């Protein structure tokens, strides 16, 4: 156990953790939104993320870029990033919508028990990730080095890279936009109404199915952005990448209080940082153990997570 190392490099570990946590947070938003409205753990959300990652890669592939290409000029990089983001958002949003229409809506029409929804979600997740696995021959795909890591801030042993800044800023902007959307717009009010009480909302004239589709779309959008940041940061994608990351993102959502947008942000950032600290102290392989122990510890004292479940409440 290396506590001295932790103290020595507290700054760098925190920054790296925040960057990782920002990705978790954006990913977690999809779980939290869907859970807030449908009370469903959307297992297929990890594949929504996966589709976003592959979409971005394919778009960059169109420009014959691969992991061995040189980093293009800055203007080109910005354009490519935009294109990648748009492609990822479209792919993720579309995947989320398709899953909702094909798998969940028929179940809602039949008043299926909650467990049936969960199992269907697992089935949808299996279908998408395995189809990807078959198509990619279960191999790892490399990501073109669009952003060459360079320090933008140096302060003692604290180096903040351009990529970290990009990830954290982009995540905060997305979060802020979503928060405003849910809290101030008409559609956002519809979402909050359905989250609070679906039947009453329907009686008040809210189109429940449209709200649910919207929620899936929003979750997909966030996952698409998270996916682009993920591929830039990690540099590789595999067909089962979504599953592994999905577990952590879902943990983040639960930790912050599932159904609560700000909870997802807090949970994601916290998990990213804790994971990094734990990797330093106990070794990389045990970092997830610490994450889950933290989750159990928090849930024992705050059974609905750090900020509680409250998508339906006025404060989001």
């Amino acid at each position, binding site marked *: 156990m290396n506590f001295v190392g932790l103290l020595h490099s507290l700054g760098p570990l925190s920054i790296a953790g925040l960057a990782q946590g920002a990705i978790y947070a954006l990913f977690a938003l999809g779980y939290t939104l869907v859970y807030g409205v449908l009370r469903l753990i959307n297992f297929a959300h990890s594949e929504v993320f996966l589709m976003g990652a592959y979409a971005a890669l394919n778009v960059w592939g169109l420009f014959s870029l691969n992991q061995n290409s040189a980093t293009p000029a800055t203007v080109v990089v910005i354009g490519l990033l935009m294109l990648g983001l748009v492609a990822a958002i479209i792919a993720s949003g579309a995947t989320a919508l398709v899953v909702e229409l094909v798998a969940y809506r028929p179940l809602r029409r039949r008043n299926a028990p909650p467990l049936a929804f969960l199992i269907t979600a697992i*089935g949808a997740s299996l279908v998408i990730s395995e189809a990807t696995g078959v198509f990619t021959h279960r191999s790892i795909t490399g990501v073109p080095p669009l952003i060459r890591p360079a320090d933008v801030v140096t302060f003692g042993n604290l180096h903040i890279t351009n990529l970290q800044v990009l990830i954290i800023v982009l995540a905060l902007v997305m979060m802020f936009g979503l928060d405003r959307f849910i809290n101030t717009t008409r559609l956002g009010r519809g979402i909050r109404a359905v989250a609070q009480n679906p039947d009453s909302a329907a009686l008040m004239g809210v189109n429940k199915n449209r709200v649910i589709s919207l929620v899936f779309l929003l979750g997909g959008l966030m996952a698409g952005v998270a996916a682009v940041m993920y591929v830039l940061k990690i540099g590789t994608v595999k067909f089962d990448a979504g599953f592994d990351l999905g577990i952590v993102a879902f943990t983040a959502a639960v930790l912050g209080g599932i159904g609560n947008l700000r909870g997802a942000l807090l949970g994601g950032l916290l998990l990213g940082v804790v994971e990094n600290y734990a990797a330093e102290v106990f*070794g990389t392989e045990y970092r997830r153990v610490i994450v889950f122990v933290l*989750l159990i510890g928090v849930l024992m004292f705050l059974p609905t997570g750090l900020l509680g479940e409250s998508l339906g409440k006025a404060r989001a």
Partner: protein
Amino acid sequence: MTAVENHQTAQAPPPVKATDRTVRGWLGRQPLPVRILVIVGFAILAYLLPYVGDVPVLGPQVVTQANDWGSVLFEISYFVLLAIGLNVVVGFAGLLDLGYVGFFAVGAYTVALLTSPDSNFGLKWVWLASVPVAIAVAMFSGLILGWPTLRLRGDYLAIVTLGFAEIIRIFADSAPLLRGDRGFGSIPHPPGNNPDGTAIFSVRDATPYYWLGLSIIILVILAVRNLDRSRVGRSWLAIREDEEAAEIMGVRTIKFKLWAFAIGACVAGLGGVMFAGYQGFMNSSTFVLQFSILVLAGVVMGGSGNIAGAILGGVLIAYVPERLRGIEVFGQDLFQWRFLMFGVIIILIMIFRPQGVIPSRRRAMELKDRAKEVAPE
């Protein structure tokens, strides 16, 4: 759902109507000896399954092509055992457990640690001696996990159990004591000799393991079925339908939820013991999380809350992929597509029969009851 609305479903199981045209309806109307005969007949047929390949015309269709039929049958048997155990947790008590494979791993690793020459403990027990210890350790781990977490509501419980399975897997991967992917070799097989002096349980023939597994399954079914019809089972039912109401009526919910968890863990541990005794070797890659999610999917597809449904689910998840292995379509082995097809099957079953293929009668009624409460779309 209020208690008043609920009184109908909370009564004793409804009498079987003469108009019930399902097979189960027919079976329910028969006198007891006929029922016993039919069930014993099914059990005998199950014992004869290793020879199904000898049945003309139909037999060869059933038997798997690429893999030894005996080992596939054994695989089916421990999947069925796991499904029955998980059914206690999910189907009877209504607790969502996504990390069930964790207990399976605990049972198997306990056997390995006690018996394998690779173990740091150097005990080299015989297989049979390690069985009670392994089951006890699995049960204990169920209690340890359940005690802090069973206060949590359904979906929170799901993520915590998922985390538990991940923790077990990480330790199996990284803790020096559990040897990571080097694993444990030479785990002894179950005891016993044929009349000619050769061992009954060897690496050459998996059929005896299947018969052993089947016998264990039958014993477990008897135990679980009796539990379900006892006071414990009625408490589980009450907790599943409305936990608050059950608590108010004097059911000690935590205690009975812990019971369900511990019994489920016990059965999974038993599965792990069987697995270790058959395989002789195991390492950290044996226990992946997808495994427990697969078992859960099996239970729900078969019909959670019903033992027959759980058995069907266990058979489905173990048999279908193996049957697909070795079939080539357009030059590609269907085995590669197994999980893809599986996902499609899961979605289709859930859409067209959300209560599972063979639902428990009471659960079907609960469903109908739910339908009355929600506003139409």
